[in-house]
Each structure stands twice: as structure tokens, then as C-alpha cells.
């Protein structure tokens, strides 16, 4: 395969050189460069062959390489030869190459749409197959979740995902936000309105570092250090349900991870408030904290709320921390010391091992993925709308 690619690129290079040399022999004419003629031949040599190879790789991967290889090389020779034959003095190769370049740029930007569509379609497809077996109402509102034990028996029993949704909400939107919102918001306020410039210069990047640490590291910290400490605390407080797979441990660590998301969006929203509003408040004799609480925060509220929603979306989609520190057993409990599980955790658990693509277990993972995708899509949409409204109010 590598050799084949090299051969195609080599032919394209030869095409460039040939086209360039040929064009040099023409008398120069305005607006037509030999270099462009070279590119014209090279593009027609390389592109069709590469496109063919790509299609082949998608449809018949890895096996039977001789036939497509021959075809590709033939296509390269024919394409290059035809292009070469079209070269004339004054032939506007530049325009044609540019049209191809624009098409290539357009194709690159299409990758995003194709990916989005791919995600949506594959989740809808697999999810649809799941809902053909398990009724949607059963799945969304059922409270009994034990998919690992259902093989053979009634597939709809044990497919109630409500405890998972609750766990994701409780860990991601309640506990994690309980940590991240106050810490992130107060940090942003302190660093932008109180701290000396010198403190700000090192403290702001230091906070950002929290967002750059891989989630597997947070997961390890949660599992090894935080979770046992929380369990011991729970036992000391006399809480019977205290577990080493508690919602609290995963949520706390997740909250720390989310701090910089909240603080940086809050910082943006606060600094978008017109300076003269803050000065008007100060000039009336308000203290800095009164100015922040009564003028800056209310004005920046849509932006801050949008940032918090984005943070919730990130927390709900976070996987490694809950895989390593939360529980695999699904229960509905508002006790933070009790074990809890989440949608993301169950997706990983369901797809562990060599499951076939058709089993209800595997399909359930995609159904969960569909719910997660739609939820984060919705949160992001609302968040961006809130943040845009702030932008409109400013203008």
C-alpha cells in the first residue's frame, strides 16, 4: 500500500516536471505560468488514482491489492497523459487548477458535515434496531438496569436506563457543578477584579492547566486517593451506604476538572460587560464587590449561564473518571456517599469484550450513545444561544 502511494506521488511529480518543462518551451504569455501548467498535469495524474484507491480501501479493505493497484497506476498514466496533451501556449492551466483547489477545500470542509451526519445516522440506525427489541418507554423510564444478565431471557427486563440518567445528572450536573461553579466563578472574579497583575499572570495559566490534564489521570486520582477517603468519611459519619464507588468521589474530581471551563467562560462574559457600567457603579460609591454582585454579574448572566451549560455538557459526557471511580451497579439514590453509575460508564461496560454487533447489549450502548449525543447537542445549542444573546445585547 505504501509503495503504491509512493508510486502515485512519484508519477504526479513526473507529471509536474513534464508539464513545467513543456510550458517553458512555449513563448511566455501574460497570466500563464509554467508552474501552473506543471500543477495541472500533476493534479490530473495524482487525484483520480488516489480517489480510486480511497474508494477501494473503504469498500474492500486490506485484501486483494493487485487489481486496484494496476487500475490506479493506469488511471494515473492516462490522466496525466491527457492533461499533458492539452497543454498549449496560453492554455489557462492556472484557472483550472484553482477550480480544483477550491473543490478540494470545499471537500475538506465537508468532512465535518459528513462526520456529524455519520454520528447521527449510525446512532439512529443502531438505536432504532435497539428500540425494535426494547420499547422506548421501557428504556427511558424503566428503573431496573442489569443488561449483563439478560442474555437468553426476556430482553426488555433489565433495560430500564433511568438510574443511568439519574447518575449522570447527579454526578455531572449536581455534584461536579457544585464544585466547579462557585470555585470557577469566584476565581474568575478574583483574578479579573482583585488580583494584582503579577498574580493574574501566573494564576490564570495555572488554572488552565487543570483543563489540560488527561481524564485518565483524574480518574486514577479519584479511584486511588479520593474515593477511599470519601468512603472513610462516610463511615466515620455513620452513613451505612458509604461506598468506595461513591457518586461524591467521581463528582468532586470531575468538578475540579471543570473549574477552568467555568472560570474562562465567566471571565469572557464579565469582561464583555462595558467598562462604563462598572465605572458608573464605582462612581456612585459602590464597593468593588457591590459592583460585581449588583451590576457585573446580572449583566453577564446569560454568558455565564451559557458557560455553565457547556460545562454540564462536558461533565455529562465525561467517561474515564466514572469508569475508574464510579460504580457499575445502577441504583437511584440522592445519597452522595452511595454508589452511582452513569450513561458513559455503562457504554464502556457494555462494549467491553468481544460482543457481537447484533446483541441487545451492544445495541443498548448505541441507544445510550444516542441519548447522550442528543442531550449534549441540546445543551450546546441552548448554551450558544444564551451566549449569543449576550453578544447581541452588547452591540
Amino acid at each position, binding site marked *: 500500500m505504501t509503495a503504491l502511494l509512493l508510486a502515485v506521488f512519484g508519477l504526479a511529480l513526473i507529471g509536474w516536471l513534464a508539464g513545467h518543462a513543456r510550458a517553458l518551451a512555449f513563448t511566455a504569455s501574460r497570466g500563464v505560468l509554467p508552474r501552473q501548467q506543471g500543477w495541472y498535469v500533476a493534479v490530473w495524474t495524482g487525484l483520480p488514482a488516489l480517489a480510486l484507491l480511497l474508494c477501494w480501501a*473503504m469498500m474492500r479493505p486490506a485484501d486483494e491489492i493487485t487489481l486496484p493497484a494496476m487500475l490506479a497506476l493506469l488511471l494515473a498514466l492516462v490522466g496525466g497523459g491527457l492533461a499533458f496533451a492539452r497543454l498549449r501556449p496560453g492554455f489557462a492551466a*492556472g484557472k483550472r487548477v*484553482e477550480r480544483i483547489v*477550491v473543490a*478540494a*477545500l*470545499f471537500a*475538506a470542509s*465537508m*468532512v*465535518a*458535515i459528513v*462526520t*456529524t451526519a*455519520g*454520528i447521527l445516522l*449510525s*446512532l439512529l440506525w443502531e438505536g432504532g434496531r435497539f428500540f425494535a427489541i426494547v420499547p422506548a418507554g421501557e428504556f427511558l423510564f424503566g428503573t431496573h438496569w442489569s443488561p449483563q444478565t439478560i442474555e437468553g431471557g426476556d430482553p426488555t427486563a433489565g433495560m430500564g436506563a433511568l438510574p443511568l440518567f439519574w447518575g449522570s445528572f447527579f454526578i455531572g450536573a449536581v455534584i461536579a457543578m457544585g464544585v466547579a461553579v462557585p*470555585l*470557577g466563578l*469566584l*476565581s474568575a472574579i*478574583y483574578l479579573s477584579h*482583585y488580583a494584582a497583575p503579577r498574580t493574574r499572570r501566573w*494564576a490564570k*495559566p*495555572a488554572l488552565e*492547566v*487543570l483543563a*489540560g*490534564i*488527561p*481524564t*485518565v*489521570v*483524574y*480518574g*486514577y486520582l479519584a*479511584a*486511588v*486517593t479520593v474515593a477511599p477517603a470519601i468512603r472513610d468519611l462516610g463511615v466515620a459519619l455513620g452513613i451505612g451506604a458509604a461506598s468506595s464507588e461513591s457518586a461524591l468521589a467521581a463528582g468532586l474530581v470531575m468538578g475540579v476538572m471543570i473549574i477552568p471551563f467555568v472560570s474562562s467562560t465567566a471571565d469572557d462574559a464579565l469582561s464583555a460587560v462595558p467598562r462604563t457600567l462598572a465605572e458608573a457603579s464605582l462612581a456612585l460609591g459602590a464597593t*468593588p*464587590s*457591590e459592583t460585581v454582585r449588583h451590576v457585573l454579574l446580572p449583566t453577564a448572566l446569560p454568558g455565564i449561564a451559557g458557560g455553565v451549560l457547556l460545562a454540564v455538557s*462536558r461533565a455529562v*459526557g465525561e*467517561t*474515564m473518571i466514572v*469508569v475508574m471511580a464510579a460504580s457499575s451497579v445502577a441504583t437511584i439514590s440522592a445519597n452522595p456517599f452511595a454508589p452511582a453509575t452513569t450513561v*458513559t460508564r455503562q*457504554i*464502556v461496560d457494555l*462494549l*467491553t469484550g468481544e460482543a457481537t454487533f447484533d446483541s441487545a447489549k451492544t445495541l443498548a*450502548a448505541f441507544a445510550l450513545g444516542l441519548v*447522550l*449525543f442528543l442531550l*449534549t*447537542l441540546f445543551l*450546546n445549542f441552548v448554551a450558544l444561544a444564551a451566549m449569543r444573546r449576550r453578544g447581541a445585547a452588547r452591540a
Partner: protein
Amino acid sequence: MRRHARRRRAAEHRFRLLGRAAVAVSIGCLLFLLGSMLVAGIGGIDGHFLRGTDATEATRAGIGAALRGSLMVLGLTLALALPVGVLAALYLEELAPRSAWATLIEGSINNLAAVPSIIFGLLGLLLFLGTMGLPRSAPLVGGLTLALMTMPVIVIAGRSAIRAVPGSIREAALAVGASRVQVTFHHVLPRAWPGILTGAIIGGSRALGETAPLLLIGMRAFIPAAPTGMTEPATVLPVQIFLWSDQIDRGFAEKTSAAIVVLLVLLFAMNGVAAWLRHRGEVRR
């Protein structure tokens, strides 16, 4: 009146303390995390650890194979995501007609950047393993999956870098008769390059630390040998950390922390380069 003023001063003082405490707690968490990993792991880092492969015994286990796997996956990710991302960013900023279509592309890029990484794992599992039949656990599939995830990050960074190029430069080039494509590639791209590169490094460092989508495409097996090809089974550093964190053998605790230290050093180095590039760009401008 005087009592009221005193109360206000006290409230001001409390608020300031509260803010300072929030910063202190946040940065304290960071220091605790870094410190505890360093203390637990620094002793486990030696030449054998950096070169070795995974093993059933903690004393013989190393991260050489995982490092190699990480580099292969990261290389493929960037090789795919960087060109596609840069071209898409150039198209959206410089050439796209203002249309509903461009808005749709924009919207899907912004949305992809916020989709949980595990969703990309589901897509990779279905598309690359299920439909295309590529081998499980291979750097090829890992790189493809992470490339889809990294591309939007690069597009977004690239667009803001391209937008920062002053319009006067475009107008100057257009005025001497350059075509839009020539303006884009001769004038805009070179000026935006440091910013694009910064975005690529940040996207790459995110891909380097990513675990969840790779678990879904089968990268969770015990791999006692370094991968030699893109389709061989391989493991990557974050997955290795995840696998070791589950081991009962106490010896692996030190190994896990040591691997985390190595991963963090790599990430900080990448981010340091990105910060340096950005700083240099700001100074020159």
C-alpha cells in the same frame, strides 16, 4: 450611617477573601494532583521502564510499547486532521460564499468540537471496525477515530488565526491582480501559520491524553510487544495507565504514577511549545 459603612467594608473584605480562597483551592488541587503523582511515580522511571513493554510482573513492565503506540496514533491523527482542518478553515474564512450551506458547515464544526469523546468511539467502532472491517486495537483505527475528533479543534483555532490576518494584506494582494486562491495560499496562510500550529498542538495534546474512545475500538488488551505496523495490535500511554490502575499487584501502583508523570511531561512540553509559538506570534504582530 457609620455602622452601615463598617458593615460594607467588612462585606468587601469577606468577598475578597472568598475569591482568594477559591483561587487557592483550585490551584491547591492542581498542586496536590501533580505532587502526589510525582512523589508516587518518580522512583519508577528508569531506562528500562521507558524502553520496556507491558508485562505480567510489575518489575518488568515498561511503557516503551505504549509510547510507540501513542506516537503512531498521534502521528496519524495529525497527518489526517491537520491538512483537512487547515483546508476547511481556509475555505470557511476565505472562499466560502455566505450561504446557508456555510452556516451548516460552521454549525456542525462547532457542535463536533463539543461532542463527548466517547461518541467518537462509538462512531469509530461502528464505521471502522463494523462496516469497514479494519482490525481491532490497531493504531490505524485509533488515529482515524481521533482525527475525526481533533479536526474540529484545528478548524476552530485555524479560523481565528486566519481572521487575525489584517484585511489590508488581502486587499493589497487582490489589488495587484492576485486571484482569491493565490491570496489565500501566498499571503493569508503564511501569516496565519503560527496560530494554526498552536491549535494543532493543542488538538494533538488532547488526542494524546484521550482514553475513552480508544477503549471502545478495542485498545484495552494486554499487548506485550511494541507495534511494528499501523494494523498491528497496539496500546497507547493513557490506556496503559488505565489498564495498570486496575491491577491488584501493588507494584503496578508505582508504575501507574510513573506512566502518568511521563504523560504529563509530554503534554506540558507540547503545551509549552504552543504557548511559545503564540507568544512569538503576538510579539511579532
